[in-house]
């Protein structure tokens, strides 16, 4: 479903919009006057057709029902140019992050990698396990052979605290 379809067929859900505004902790979003500076500088525009100004407009109109299940919110490369350049501080990047959080909360389709990382952190503290790397001369090197200090895992209290934090919405 394209964003244009969302605009013409969806019904506004202002409750959900207010939740997003609350999550953002500010109301600057409504000040967007569609100057399109965000989209004209967007790294993901050329490759994946992300148009941040459309997402901001949809949220402002309350047309947020279908956005969390749309693949478009996962195309942002988080270069932060839109946050930097927005004259109204509407900050499309933060809107996209809020929509991704909603997608997870609603059990919508989320790229697998993100959820894997959460369990990885829960297990070991780190988002990715230390690896063995192969050099240009085909030698295998790990932290130990590179004479780097050992990774220090978090203390036992960490898991419970992180799980509690993950329950917050």
């Amino acid at each position: 479903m394209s964003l244009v379809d969302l605009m013409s067929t969806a019904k506004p859900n202002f409750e959900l919009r207010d939740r997003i505004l609350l999550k953002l902790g500010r109301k600057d979003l409504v000040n967007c006057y569609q100057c399109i500076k965000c989209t004209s500088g967007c790294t993901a525009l050329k490759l994946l057709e992300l148009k941040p100004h459309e997402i901001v407009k949809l949220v402002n109109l309350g047309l947020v029902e279908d956005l969390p299940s749309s693949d478009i919110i996962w195309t942002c490369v988080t270069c932060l140019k839109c946050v930097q350049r927005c004259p109204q501080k509407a900050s499309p990047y933060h809107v996209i992050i809020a929509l991704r959080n909603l997608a997870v909360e609603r059990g919508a389709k989320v790229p697998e990698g993100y959820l894997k990382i959460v369990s990885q952190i829960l297990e070991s503290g780190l988002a990715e396990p230390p690896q063995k790397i192969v050099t240009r001369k085909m030698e295998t090197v790990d932290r130990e052979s590179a004479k780097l200090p050992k990774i220090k895992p978090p203390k036992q209290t960490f898991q419970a605290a992180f799980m509690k934090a993950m329950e917050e919405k």
Partner: protein
Amino acid sequence: MKIAVYWGCCIQANQFAYEISLRATLPKLGIELVDLSESVCCGDPVKSVNDFAADFLAVRVLAQANLTGLDNLLVPCNRCHFTLSEAQDNMKKKPQSAQKIINLLKEEGLEYNPNIKIWHTINLLHDHVGLEKITKAAKKPFRGLKVATHVGCQLIRYGDLGRADDAENPRKLDELIEAIGAEAVDYAEKLDCCGAALMRSHPDSALSLAGSKLKAVQGLNVAGLVVSCPDCGLMFDVKQKDAGTIVGAKFDVPVVYYTQLLGLAMGIDSKKLGLQLNQSPAEKLLAKIST
């Protein structure tokens, strides 16, 4: 200066060259590194899942830094640097969630200290150590060596947070290059993104971004590409071949961390700077330096 250091996941998991070269160069410039007592994610990849939990992880890192009793924290990864800086800002701007985080930390016997100053390699070297001292330390300056720099997105944006350099015209990395006698060329694609954040959802597009930038750099006829972020390093160095496949090009661009180049200029042996670990043809750059 004695400074706490938070390495983050990417450096510790596979970008050993950055860690090795930081550990080799900084102490020689009067910077003593103190490792934190735990290695836990900064929260960056969790932002897309639950931004409160991401902030919790970031503030927890700052609380870990607080245990060292030091007021300065070095964060050599751009993404970690951004995540910690934004979490520090959120602690001021979102009092309700800040209180929840403080309570969670209390359960673990940890305490948040809002006054910790977060540094990155680039502004620590440029603003604290200073260009003059670096020039003096560079016993073997690279006269006539031309390189391209890639600062990375999250180190310079967004300005409201107070970032390590200017968002639209970052100069510090270039000046650090000049301080060791080399030249940093200007090029149109300088601020283009490496694509790392898309690897989880759209890996082909991510590699295409890295590939486009490498194409531009290869066309500059420079000795190499200098980076200062492990994610960017991963994309341009480790994934260089894959990026070439995606954009239909054959790359042989040496990609090195600034601290590796700095170490060479200081006369440190290339092995002690992890240059054997770069996947791109670093020997091409080394050959240019030694002649």
